[in-house]
């Protein structure tokens, strides 16, 4: 089976008018296999967010190759990328990004609309996803009736509802207190262990990264370390 993510020599340069170009990625090589749980760490400006956007098919590299689940992405147009995002990727954001005044279950159904899942199957799949994050009984609640931790779990339900090949989480605990962070990270871990879901998580908190099984560290547009997480050390 092809790796979920396979990048080689990935460079991203932002041209600046009248000044020096900003080089966000300076030739990154990384492979993420199916079923991995990878945490990406690094200080601000290290290139980790740019890397995540490229992996998430929201941005294109300046040079280098990126194969997603065996697809060569260079030849795909914006609509193909959008379709691939809807089927094969799940996003979780720091600010949850739930639609306001919309029930939890309708929020979870949203990716299925864009993936053209028949309406009859959506409700069932959304309910299953909410059940998987432990919020089945909150299906009819709107975001402002839920705590931050609960909102993020709804967002996670939304990210897994299409059974994606990769879940991308961008600082998913950034807005949460310690207890909620632990809940959310335990949930990611459970989804990874029990359902074999591939997760790539961007964070700058070591405690959060410790829940992953592999830790990749960025600095100045390069990967400076890539190692398995040794759990005992961090407890």
């Amino acid at each position, binding site marked *: 089976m092809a790796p979920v993510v396979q990048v080689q020599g990935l460079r991203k340069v932002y041209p600046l008018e009248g000044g020096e170009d900003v080089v966000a990625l300076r030739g990154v090589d990384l492979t993420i296999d199916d079923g991995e749980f990878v945490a990406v760490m690094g200080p601000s400006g290290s290139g980790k967010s740019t890397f995540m956007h490229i992996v998430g098919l*929201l941005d294109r590299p300046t040079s280098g190759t990126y194969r997603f689940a065996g697809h060569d992405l260079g030849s795909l147009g*914006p*609509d193909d990328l959008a*379709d691939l*995002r809807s089927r094969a990727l799940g996003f979780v*954001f720091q600010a949850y990004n739930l639609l306001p*005044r919309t029930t939890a279950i309708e929020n979870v159904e949203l*990716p299925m609309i864009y*993936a053209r899942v028949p309406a009859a199957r959506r409700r069932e799949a959304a309910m299953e996803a909410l059940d998987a994050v432990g919020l089945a009984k909150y299906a009819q609640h709107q975001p402002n009736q839920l705590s931050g931790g609960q909102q993020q779990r709804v967002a996670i339900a939304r990210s897994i509802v299409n059974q994606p090949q990769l879940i991308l989480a961008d600082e998913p605990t950034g807005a949460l207190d310690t207890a909620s962070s632990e809940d959310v990270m335990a949930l990611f871990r459970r989804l990874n262990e029990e359902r074999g879901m591939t997760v790539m998580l961007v964070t700058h908190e070591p405690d959060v990264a410790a829940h992953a099984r592999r830790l990749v560290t960025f600095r100045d547009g390069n990967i400076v370390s890539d190692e398995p997480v040794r759990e005992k050390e961090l407890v």
Partner: protein
Amino acid sequence: MITLTQTLRLALQALVRNRSRSLLTMLGVVIGVAAVIVTVAIGTGAKTSVANQINGLGSNLVMVIPGSVNTSGVRTGNGGASTLTVQDGLAIAKIPGVSAVSPQVTVRTQLVANGNNWQTTVTGAAPTFTYVRSWGVASGRFFTQSETDSAAKVAVLGQTVVNQLFPGSDPVGQTVLVKSVPFTVVGTLTAKGQSGAGQDQDDTVLMPYTSALERLTGGTSIGGLMVSAVDAQHIDSVQSQITGLLEQRHGIVAGQPDDFQVRNLQDIAQAASATASILGLLLAAVAAVSLLVGGIGIMNIMLVSVTERTREIGLRVALGARGAAILRQFLIEAVVLSTGGGAIGVLLGVLGAASIAVFAHWPSSVPVVAVVLALAFSAAVGVFFGFWPARKAAALDPIRALRFE
């Protein structure tokens, strides 16, 4: 491509999330369309009633009035000449295609009767008047040919005069002093209402033209001739024959201006309908302006909405929405706003027109075409003014959109 119904649902959900703003945004189109429907309804009603009134005058009517006279360079207006005579009328009656002729002698004078007095227009006419003007008698009878021949002192009253001089009593058989001359009331006319020009046609008294000439004006010239053609097809030929006949009788040679004018009501009807058409164009222009303003309102709110929902758009793109799906959603939101506004506006406009008809007794009718056009126009406004904001939304960079605060 996600289906249209699905996009419609997404758009409706988004609009319902912002209920009060959506309603306020619609308001511009609502008011514009409602105003258009009401004005069109009133305009159509007025046009219909003008057409009815013109037909009520007798469509086959041809009017002959004296022309202008030039005395030492001073020209009077039409009707200033005193060249038209009863004999002209008798000659015209012999023209083929003419079914009836009635002279018209009008005098404005004071009436006294029953302890009341009232100033009105006295019209001297022939017994053919009832036929020529298609105007019936409500009570009593019209004056006869022998009363005309003998210049009898008989009068027929219009309803307004009846109400002023004989409120609550029967005027037939009573005496009216016209310019101090006693006249016997032999009948009353049916109510005819306002003329197309807004005059009260019932504020009149009719008497034989002979009586009017002998006892009121003391001359032989008449104010005009009412000629009835046998049918509408004969109006043009009757008109040209009258012109030829009168030029000959009045000794007018070619190149000289006529001292009379021949008009038919068809011309007036055409002028009225032309006026109505211009009015219609004017209304359409007002409608276009109001819908334009409503459309700009929608565009404004849609632009605000795109900015405000930048993160939502970023999210939708991240979740796999194609650019076209975003564009369609925002376009449909704009169209739903404008068409919804148009529908509410039509409803309010129809209610408004109906209540004006009931409370102000103003005739009004809402043409189906106006409703269909108003709805089609408001939908077009949505597409036109929604397109730019929708394209802006679809062109957003998802990464920036997701970070947007």
